[in-house]
């Protein structure tokens, strides 16, 4: 199944939050939706799940404009939006089944136990970490094909983050071709091995999207004396340059000229992200 975002623009009054963004999500793949604070990630996810509406553009599911009943069964957004705080965890697991007949209640209770989430606790009484765990479980157990996680590791300790990654991948393996996970997070280093494709948003526009290995294949870090680095990277697109003492490091895209004076190495997703979304200064 394919979810297409086509030329979507969103204005909040005179502020343009999203500017003509287009992208595709397919089941059987895990995506990262990356961007700095205020880049428009949450706005985009809220539009995809039709909690808010776009000013212009279309959301298509397998080529058809999405209808409201299809929306419920195909797209799930795990976000800050709170559930009724007076309800207990176990009650919400059961209520979920009313809206989503194939919600996996049994698995929800198993996961709650694995994470030591007290299902008799009221939602409002959960700590930041457990509130996140609860929302993640709701997403994982839904029968939706497209599940979006907005900051799914917020407030989780290292052990719980580790458990979340394993749970996500094991569920993904079970569901095979039937599910697409979209993870939006600032902890890029932690999720970079989990994802296959990435979309980077800057100031309301998509600046990069594609297979992570492909993105990284063309990006290099070149280190050495300033003059040597400049000579070696003449023909490249320079994303950013840093200088410490008399050592210069440039992050570039393109063909680096062989030069004995410079050290060339590959970059990771987080480094590439920082260079692509920097606005000067620090």
């Amino acid at each position: 199944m394919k979810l297409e975002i086509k030329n979507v623009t969103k204005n909040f009054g005179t502020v343009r939050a999203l500017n003509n963004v287009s992208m595709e999500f397919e089941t059987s793949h895990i995506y990262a939706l990356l961007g700095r604070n205020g880049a428009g990630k949450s706005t985009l996810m809220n539009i995809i799940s039709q909690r808010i509406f776009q000013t212009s553009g279309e959301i298509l599911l397998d080529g058809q404009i999405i209808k409201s009943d299809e929306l419920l069964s195909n797209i799930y957004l795990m976000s800050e939006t709170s559930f009724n705080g007076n309800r207990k965890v176990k009650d919400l697991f059961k209520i979920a089944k009313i809206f989503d007949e194939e919600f996996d209640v049994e698995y929800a209770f198993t996961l709650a136990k694995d994470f030591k989430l007290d299902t008799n606790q009221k939602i409002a009484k959960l700590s930041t970490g457990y509130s996140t765990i609860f929302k993640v479980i709701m997403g994982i157990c839904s029968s939706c094909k497209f599940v979006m996680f907005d900051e799914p590791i917020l407030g989780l300790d290292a052990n719980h983050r580790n458990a979340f990654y394993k749970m996500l991948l094991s569920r993904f393996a079970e569901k095979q071709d039937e599910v697409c996970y979209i993870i939006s997070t600032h902890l890029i280093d932690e999720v970079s091995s989990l994802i296959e494709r990435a979309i980077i948003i800057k100031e309301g526009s998509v600046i990069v999207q594609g297979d992570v290995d492909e993105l990284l294949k063309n990006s290099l870090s070149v280190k050495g004396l300033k003059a040597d680095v400049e000579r070696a990277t003449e023909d490249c697109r320079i994303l950013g340059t840093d200088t410490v003492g008399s050592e210069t490091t440039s992050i570039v895209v393109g063909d680096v000229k062989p030069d004995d004076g410079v050290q060339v190495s590959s970059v990771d997703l987080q480094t590439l992200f920082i260079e692509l979304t920097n606005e000067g200064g620090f």
Partner: protein
Amino acid sequence: MKFSANSGVPIFMQIANSIEEDILIGVYGDEMQIPSTTEISVGYKINPATVLKGINILVDQKILYKKRGVGMFVSTGARELIKEKRSESFYSDFVKPMVNEAKRLSFSKRYIIDMINKEEIN
């Protein structure tokens, strides 16, 4: 196995290298089954497509082969194949960097050879 997103080597290559390493040291012998894509994916928190990409490199090199519906197995003679492959890159992977470092440290050729002679190699 240990994988790192910022080691400078793509993760799918790290997967291939690590399985090779396991075959070389005898963790997986001829005709033995290696862990499934899902096991590696969940166990090491790596996207299954990335795991598969790494495994497929070894399938292309005939180090692993697929038994339909069962899984991935080590080809008979895989260890020899890996040894051959690694022999070819031994000079560029190990000798060249060693010589470069030795030059920076102003070692003489004699000094390096003496060091090697101290090691027991048959």
